[in-house]
């Protein structure tokens, strides 16, 4: 009988500490494959019910049956962190995975984005998500399944619309515009104020209502939960629950290449140094490693996508070779995928990895474009902006309560797909309970307005 992978854990941890890895304790749990799939689909071990997760779940199952994807581990940052491993995996696989998890745990304790998210939110996102799910179960009992589902339809479709710069906990806007400073400012005003001090002071007594919102508001979830006139409290709570989970998901999304690369680097390094692991287990584990970080599927010559594990792994190897572990740890603490790729993906690494840019021509074959490292980095990053979503913000709330959303097509370079936008507005109008309008541009860059069909609400 080969020893269980758990037997190797204490010595792996000791080895990792020797390299300077620093992490909160991790609770390991081996779970069946189906549960692994669920965690990957829901993003959290316990999460609110919604039919869209069911559709993704079946999609994942199909992919797994066709052998496309295989899940090795899912880690949740926190204190303690939690790691789920597939119980069907062999000793070698799970030993590798345990080492991989230590890399992730180190990353999530030290990376700036993760640290901020845990400071703002909490170190116990799993427990919070479970509490949200429980609360939503109670809402279902109290208000019925369909009513809760409609709110979740809206909240989850706006999942990516949070404002990281303003943070998780926010106060409502000031209700009134700050009183203009009479007498100060330009020379004319100060001379005017001396003519009749009473008249000059008078305007400050009259308060002026601030426009709503005072600036374009990116945090749609917060704005709707705070300013929808007729929303029930339980509906607002659902919006805020989805929003809190989004703040948790963001660092995972924004550091994917770095984080996976870091964990892959450390599982390879730790295993290489682990002389306590039997030779055959080590060989199997290394085979598994090369499957994970291989750039192109075995039977293919060319892939039209980049494996983030491979990309991150290669970059970290280069960084550590050049500057040592300390330099790498500084990058790990301070960067996200934008700065990581822009600073460290060099022309040499691009050629070494055989990365190329391509363009899918309309009705034609795919054309490989000329080498250009700057363009290539931007192509890699194009899906990373704004949490991967088009830029939509609240522009104004009209006097009749109409919510006006504005899509920034100058940065996104294209307008929104009006069909799906219309459907999203139909979700939103159900909770906003007033007209909802979205401004974007059409295919010819002419402004168009999408208006939700209120009959559908």
């Amino acid at each position, binding site marked *: 009988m080969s020893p269980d992978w758990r037997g190797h854990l204490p010595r792996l941890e000791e080895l990792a500490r020797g390299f300077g890895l620093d992490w909160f304790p991790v609770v390991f749990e081996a779970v069946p494959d189906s549960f692994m799939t669920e965690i990957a689909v829901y993003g959290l071990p316990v999460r609110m019910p919604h*039919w869209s997760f069911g559709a993704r779940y079946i999609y994942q199952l199909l992919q797994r049956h066709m052998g496309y994807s295989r899940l090795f581990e899912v880690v949740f940052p926190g204190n303690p962190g939690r790691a789920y491993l597939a119980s069907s995996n062999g000793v070698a696989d799970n030993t590798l995975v345990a080492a991989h998890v230590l890399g992730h745990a180190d990353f999530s304790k030290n990376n700036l984005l993760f640290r901020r998210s845990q400071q703002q939110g909490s170190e116990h996102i799993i427990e919070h998500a479970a509490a949200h799910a429980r609360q939503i179960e109670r809402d279902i009992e109290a208000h019925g399944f369909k009513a809760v589902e409609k709110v979740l339809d809206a909240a989850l479709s706006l999942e990516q619309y949070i404002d990281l710069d303003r943070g998780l906990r926010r106060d409502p806007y000031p209700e009134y515009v700050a009183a203009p400073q009479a007498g100060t400012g330009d020379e004319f005003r100060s001379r005017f104020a001396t003519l009749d001090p009473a008249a000059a002071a008078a305007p400050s007594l009259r308060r002026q209502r601030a426009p709503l919102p005072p600036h374009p508001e990116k945090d749609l979830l917060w704005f709707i939960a705070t300013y929808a006139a007729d929303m029930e409290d339980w509906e607002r709570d659902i919006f805020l629950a989805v929003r809190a989970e989004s703040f948790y998901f*963001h660092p995972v999304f924004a550091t994917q290449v770095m984080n996976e690369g870091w964990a892959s680097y450390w599982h390879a390094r730790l295993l290489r140094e682990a002389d306590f692991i039997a030779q055959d287990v080590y060989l199997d584990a290394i085979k598994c490693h090369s499957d994970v970080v291989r750039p192109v599927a075995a039977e293919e010559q*060319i892939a039209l996508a980049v494996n983030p594990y491979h990309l991150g792994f290669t970059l970290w190897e280069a960084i550590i070779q050049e500057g040592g572990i300390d330099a790498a740890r500084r990058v790990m603490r301070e960067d996200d995928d934008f700065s990581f790729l822009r600073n460290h993906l060099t022309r040499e690494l691009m050629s070494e990895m055989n990365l190329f840019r391509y363009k899918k021509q*309309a009705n034609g074959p795919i054309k490989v474009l000329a080498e250009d490292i700057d363009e290539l980095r931007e192509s890699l990053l194009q899906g990373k902006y704004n949490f991967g*979503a088009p830029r939509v913000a609240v522009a104004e709330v009209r006097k009749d309560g109409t919510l006006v959303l504005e899509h920034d097509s100058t940065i996104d370079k294209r307008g929104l797909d009006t069909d799906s936008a219309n459907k999203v507005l139909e979700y939103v109008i159900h909770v906003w309970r007033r007209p909802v309008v979205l401004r974007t541009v059409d295919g010819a860059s002419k402004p168009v307005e999408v208006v939700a069909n209120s009959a559908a609400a």
Partner: protein
Amino acid sequence: MTPITPQDTDDTARGNSNAVNGWYDLFSRGARDWLRHSEKIREAVHQHLPQIVTGSDIINDGTRKVRVPVRMLEHYRFKLRPDSEPEGVGQGTAKPGDLLGPGNAGSKQGGKGPGGTEKGGPELLLEFKIDDIIDWMWEELRLPNLKPRIGKSDEAEWKREGWDRRGARSRLDRRRSVKESVKRRAQSSSSPAFIDEDLRFRQLTRRPQPAVRAAVFFLLDVSASMTDADRQLAKSFFFWVAAGLRRQYRALDIVFVAHTTEAWEFNESDFFKVAGSGGTVTSAGLNKVQEIMEARFNPAGTNVYLFYASDGDNAVDDRDAARAALENVARQTQYAGYIEITSGLRSGSSEISQIFDAVGASGLASSRCSIKDSNDVAGAVRHFFTHEARTAEESGAAPESPP
């Protein structure tokens, strides 16, 4: 941490994983939410019932199923309109200027959003029993069940009714017989367990039954003015009517009659392909119906329905003949309905509408309705079935004039 021997780890691991497996099996969120997704798909299909049936040859076969291809439901998010020439980054041995065929394309997508924004997904093929669809339809439209005419039937059935002291052995009612025996022995305890006087036999009598046989005539105008689309609409409408009648009647005969200036009987598959030329003489069609009805169905024992679909044109000199023929037919049918297919713009007072209005006003159970496109079919079905139920209830009282 206390050191764990390999033996221990193995056992605890196995024990744990068993307990854990049991727990996870009991509770699958993925499966629960997938069921909800399927339910939503069924609801979505539900709303497009008339469109589903417009396409297939399903009138004659009540047990068949329809297969409806559906996409996985999309939970919508804001997304950009598709890029006509999207760029990406790939990996492998490719030189600038190379053209990659679709065969070389990796099938996997790169980074996904936090929520996973994969497109489409596989298509599902859902199977629906026609009967289920009909039941939904009836629930949704709150259609009344038809009431067969009672009393105009000569069909009778043997029904069990009462007991007698004599009868065939096979109809012996043991429970009754024992009861009788107990009663008798309560009076004199010394008598034997069973005597002939104790035996009770179930009896049968002949009772007239409401007519459960029905026939429906689908009369279709196939003159030159009826387009393919018009015939498709008629077909879809006829399907619902047949389905509705089949809900009520155990045996339903369907007769397809097409007419231009003449009339012919067809089988189902040919019926909808027939395209005639020339003008329209409605009386020819109605007379053909009359002829078949007399030859094949006994109006006293069969509930006969007539549904006529046309675009409303009729030869002007046929007006009186058509009206007489319709009155003739309507007197023997349970109900006569007329559906006018007005794919173009048309007022409601076509030749044939006037005839049906007149016949309806004279007290015979009939009504008319017009449809423009497949969305109106369900409404037309509702109109006829509710109207039929109303006239059947009033039975004899002057029916309201059609709306």
